[in-house]
Every structure is written in structure tokens, then in C-alpha cells.
């Protein structure tokens, strides 16, 4: 034990005696570890943010859309699609929408020329949409049962559109849909899963049928909340239940999976940054091997005298290896701190929550030590092989 303490003391003396050289040696493992920690931590923080979003939205939202494998125009779902969907036992809530086409939306009549070229989606929907999407209204209310049944011309607009039209919250306004004035009864908050809704106008199916459609409104999309954990089965069952062997085709998408898929692309970037960090560490390791090899030559007289004083080859080798390990430990710790700082700065700038996996810090330090040991092996071996008689240049 006291031998080990002696070894440590000599290693640190050796490092402290050459401060600039030691500092330069530290840079390699430090930058490498910092890059790896920062890239993993930043993507984790971003992912953590995404996870928080998914958790807020719930993982159990399924989107079921009409599709046509034969390339038919405007495929639709059956008019009773919602009722059919509700026959699936794991389905809890359903809301349907139909996208209406060719409707010019303008805040007031005179502005229609300006907004003619701006496509604003108008959606016919039912009274359940905010409940299924679990989105609140910024102000006002959603389309009511009364509106839906009587075809009252009331509309809810997305928060983005409200800003564009400069609607104040709670302001009593109308909106022109293909020249027909609709009362704006509410403003819907932004929907993470459907960014398009931010700029959309929602009206009831009934109004859509009366004002814009020739016949019964056939929805082309449904949003379904199922029992948590049954997303896959529910999606499969939905396709069958809605289709019922009929001509209408339906595709389903679990929204949280789509979000996670988006996160996958970040992983590519993360991999690139990690490999760059690894490269930095390896280059740093080569630097350690290089500088320490030169150091062995410079210190050959010291090695010689130590050997003469009774220090064995083994002791000399461990001595040099310990110097390399110390560089790895210190460089690794500094790299972890630097990496954490980078995550902290990056996360605060992006407004994410600081996320750093607990394994990241020890892994970074272990990596730095491993590289340092590998880099120190060659110079340590060379130092041990020196013949004291040759290095002392006896006169």
C-alpha cells in the first residue's frame, strides 16, 4: 500500500513538474469526453423534451385516415365511421374530421382578395375533437351540441390563425368562409401532434353539409383515444371495424410513434458527434503516447538513476503508466464537467430540461482512462527497457 502511495506521489510530482506539457496532454481526453457527453446529453435533453410532449399528449392517440390504393381522389371514410370505431372495445373516444376544399377564408369581406391565395384549411368536425386531442381552448368555447345539430354558423379557429388575423382573445368577431360570415366562438390552443391545426378553421359537420357540401359529410380522418397500452391492437382492430370489408380503405398511425420516429433522425446526428468525440479521444491518446515517448527519452537519465537506486523495471513502467492514467482521470473529469456545462448551456438556450444519463459521467471517465492506459503502455514499456548503464553515460 505504501508502495502504491509512493508511486502516486512520484507520478503526480512528475506531472506537476511539467505543467504546460501536462495541460496539453489533458486537452485530448478532455475535449473528446466533453464532445461525447455533450452530444449524448443534448440529444437526451431534446428527447426528454419530446418525451415530455408525448407524455403530455398521451401515447394512446391513433390517427385513422382514409386512403386509396387505386389513386382515387379524396378518399373518405364511411359516414358512420365513428360509430364503427366505437365498437372496438379498447377504443375510448373518437372524433372525426373532414377537410373541406376550395374555401377562401378571410377575416372580413374586403380582405378576401388578399387571402384568396393563402390556403387556410377548413375542417368539418364534431363536438369531441378537443377532448380527444386533449387540447384546451385559449378562449371561448368549442362547437356545441346545439351548433352541431342546428347547423349554427359558429367556427373555432387555431391560435396561429387568430394571431394572423389579429383576433383578441374573447373578441366577438366573424370570419368569412367563401363569403359566408361565421361567428368565431373560440380559439383552439396549438396541437403538438397536428401543427396544421394551428392555422385551421373548425366548423360543425352540419354547417359543412349545409354551406359547402352537396351531400352528407363523409369524414376523411379520425382521431382515436384507446386504452393505454393497446395502441397496436386497437389500430389493427380499427382498420377492420371501419372498413368492414367495404371499399373504403383506412390507414392508422400511432402518433407517439411518429414523434419517436422523428427523434430517430436526431440519433444520426448524435452518432456523428459521438464518433467525432471518439476521434478526438483517439487523437488525444496518440498525443499522450507521442509526448510521453519523447518524455522517456528526455528523462532517460532520471530513469537510469532511479534504476541505480534500486527501482525495478516494473516500478518504472508502472510509474509512467500511472502518469498516463492520471492524465486520463483528470482529463476525463474535466471533460465530463465541460460536457455538462455544454449540455446546460445548450438546454437552457433551447428551453429544454437538463437531462444527463447517470452512466454518462463514469463512462466518459472510464473511456478517457482506457485510452490513456493504452497510450501509456508503449512509453512505459520503453522506459522499463532502458539500461541504466547506457542512460547514465558512465565516464
Amino acid at each position, binding site marked *: 500500500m505504501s508502495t502504491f502511495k509512493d508511486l502516486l506521489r512520484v507520478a503526480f510530482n512528475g506531472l506537476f513538474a511539467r505543467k504546460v506539457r501536462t495541460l496539453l496532454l489533458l486537452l485530448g481526453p478532455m475535449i473528446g469526453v466533453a464532445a461525447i457527453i455533450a452530444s449524448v446529453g443534448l440529444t437526451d435533453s431534446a428527447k426528454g423534451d419530446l418525451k415530455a410532449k408525448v407524455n403530455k399528449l398521451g401515447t394512446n392517440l391513433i390517427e385513422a385516415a382514409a386512403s386509396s390504393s387505386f389513386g382515387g381522389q379524396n378518399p373518405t371514410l364511411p359516414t358512420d365511421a365513428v360509430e364503427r370505431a366505437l365498437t372496438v372495445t379498447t377504443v375510448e373516444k373518437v372524433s372525426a374530421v373532414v377537410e373541406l376544399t376550395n374555401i377562401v377564408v378571410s377575416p372580413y369581406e374586403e380582405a378576401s382578395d388578399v387571402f384568396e391565395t393563402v390556403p387556410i384549411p377548413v375542417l368539418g368536425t364534431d363536438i369531441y375533437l378537443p377532448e380527444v386531442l386533449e387540447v384546451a381552448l385559449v378562449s371561448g368555447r368549442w362547437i356545441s351540441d346545439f351548433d352541431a345539430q342546428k347547423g349554427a354558423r359558429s367556427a373555432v379557429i387555431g391560435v396561429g390563425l387568430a394571431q394572423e388575423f389579429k383576433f383578441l382573445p374573447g373578441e366577438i368577431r366573424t370570419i368569412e368562409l367563401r363569403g359566408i360570415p361565421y361567428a368565431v366562438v373560440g380559439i383552439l390552443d396549438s396541437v403538438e401532434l397536428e401543427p396544421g391545426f394551428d392555422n385551421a378553421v373548425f366548423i360543425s359537420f352540419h354547417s359543412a353539409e349545409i354551406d359547402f357540401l352537396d351531400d352528407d359529410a363523409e369524414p376523411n380522418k379520425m382521431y382515436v383515444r384507446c386504452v393505454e397500452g393497446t395502441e397496436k391492437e386497437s389500430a389493427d382492430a380499427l382498420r377492420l371495424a371501419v372498413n368492414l370489408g367495404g371499399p373504403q380503405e383506412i390507414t392508422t398511425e400511432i402518433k407517439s410513434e411518429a414523434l419517436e420516429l422523428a427523434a430517430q433522425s436526431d440519433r444520426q446526428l448524435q452518432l456523428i458527434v459521438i464518433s467525432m468525440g471518439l476521434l478526438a479521444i483517439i487523437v488525444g491518446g496518440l498525443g499522450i503516447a507521442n509526448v510521453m515517448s519523447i518524455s522517456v527519452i528526455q528523462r532517460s537519465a532520471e530513469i537510469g538513476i532511479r534504476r541505480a537506486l534500486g527501482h525495478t523495471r516494473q516500478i518504472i513502467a508502472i510509474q509512467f503508466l500511472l502518469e498516463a492514467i492520471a492524465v486520463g482521470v483528470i482529463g476525463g473529469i474535466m471533460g465530463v464537467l465541460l460536457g455538462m456545462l455544454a449540455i446546460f448551456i445548450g438546454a437552457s438556450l433551447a428551453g429544454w430540461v437538463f437531462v444527463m444519463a447517470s452512466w454518462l459521467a463514469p463512462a466518459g471517465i472510464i473511456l478517457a482512462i482506457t485510452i490513456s492506459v493504452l497510450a501509456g503502455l508503449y512509453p512505459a514499456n520503453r522506459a522499463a527497457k532502458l539500461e541504466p548503464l547506457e542512460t*547514465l553515460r558512465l565516464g
Partner: protein
Amino acid sequence: MSTVTDPSVLMELSHVSRVYGTGEAAVWALRDVSMVIRAGDFLSIVGPSGSGKSTMLGLLGCLDVPTEGTITVGGEEVTRLADAARTRVRGQSIGFVFQQFHLIPHLDALGNVETALLYRSLKPAERKERAMASLERVGLGKRADHRPVQLSGGEQQRVALARALVTEPKILLADEPTGALDSKNAANVMEILSSLQATSRAVVIVTHDASIANSAARKISMLDGGIVTDEILRR
């Protein structure tokens, strides 16, 4: 071998030869040398360049092994030992002083002396105490925290002496100890060396300087890899 049991024999060389290179290029640096170093010896080994005295120093210091013959230190045949064991014998029995001092530049005087006591399972306090005592012995107690560059040549050599003595070696090997010093410092170092004469220890000075050699009590003259004379100068 009767000498093995003789406690006054610190080191014995028996028919020792050292050959560098092989075949046509072989150089016999030392040829069939036999000698004994006894406790109380104050011995000089003198000879011109190429006489084999440096090779001799390497062998006496257990830094090298002979091609032929045997060397025993304290009754132990070091020529049969592996490198690590020979290193241990060297650390325990032999102290070195070199012409170029060979102090470790980044350590202070005390640290340099302490280096000889590392890896010996000593408590740091005890090691420091012994190193300090050794420095005081050569009159450098007040220079303990000076680095080699802050010391004069004579002082550096005295630190080297303190380092060599701190392990209480049986044999002190000095290689041209005054070679890099002016006459005043040289005299000072020689004075310390001669004062180290003790019944339990031997001091061996390897030199090419006849006047240094003649200040010893016993002188071995070497030429062409062999011992020419081995004479007692004083009792």
C-alpha cells in the same frame, strides 16, 4: 568457497570477463578479473580511457552482468539473479555517486534524497526524517528545499552523496566524483568521502585522475581490461 562465509568480504569478483559484441566484432572490455572488496576499504580504481574501469564500475554496481565469471555481494551470487532481484540487491547494498550528479531536476534536494528511499515500505515522515539527516550529514540541511538548478556543482554532488548514503549502503561507488567540480569543491567532496571510511563500509572511487586515486588507502590500477596492480597505500 571460504570467502562466502567471511563477513568482512562485501563483494567478490571471480574470474570475471565482460565481452561486448560477438564473433569478429567482439571486444573484451574486461578479461579474467578477480578481486575482493572488504569492509573498511577506501579503494580507488584508476586507469586511462579504455582500460575497462567503466565496465568495472557497471559490474561492481550490479548495473551489468559479466559474460563469464561470478560476482557475489554479501555472500549472494548476483550473477545468478534475475534483473528484479539484482535491482533489489543494488538498492540494498550499493550507493552511487556520478560525475554528472544525476539529480532529478524537478525535485528539491530533499526529494532527490528521498527518491532512494521510495518503495521500501517506509512511512513518509520516517523517510523525510532519514533524508533530512543524510542531507545534514553532508552539510546541506539548510538547502533541503532547493532544486538542483539553485545549487552549485559542489552542493549538487553533496546532495548526490546524501542520496547515496541515505540507504546505508555497504559499498559506495563513486564514478569520477570530482570530475565536474573545481578544486575547492573537489577537495570538499573527497574530504567527505574519506570521512565515510568505516569498518562496516567500503568506498570505491573510479577515476582517471592519479592524484585522486592516490588519496585513497588502496589503489587498483587497470589497463586493457585487466588489473595491473592492487596496492595498499595506507593503513
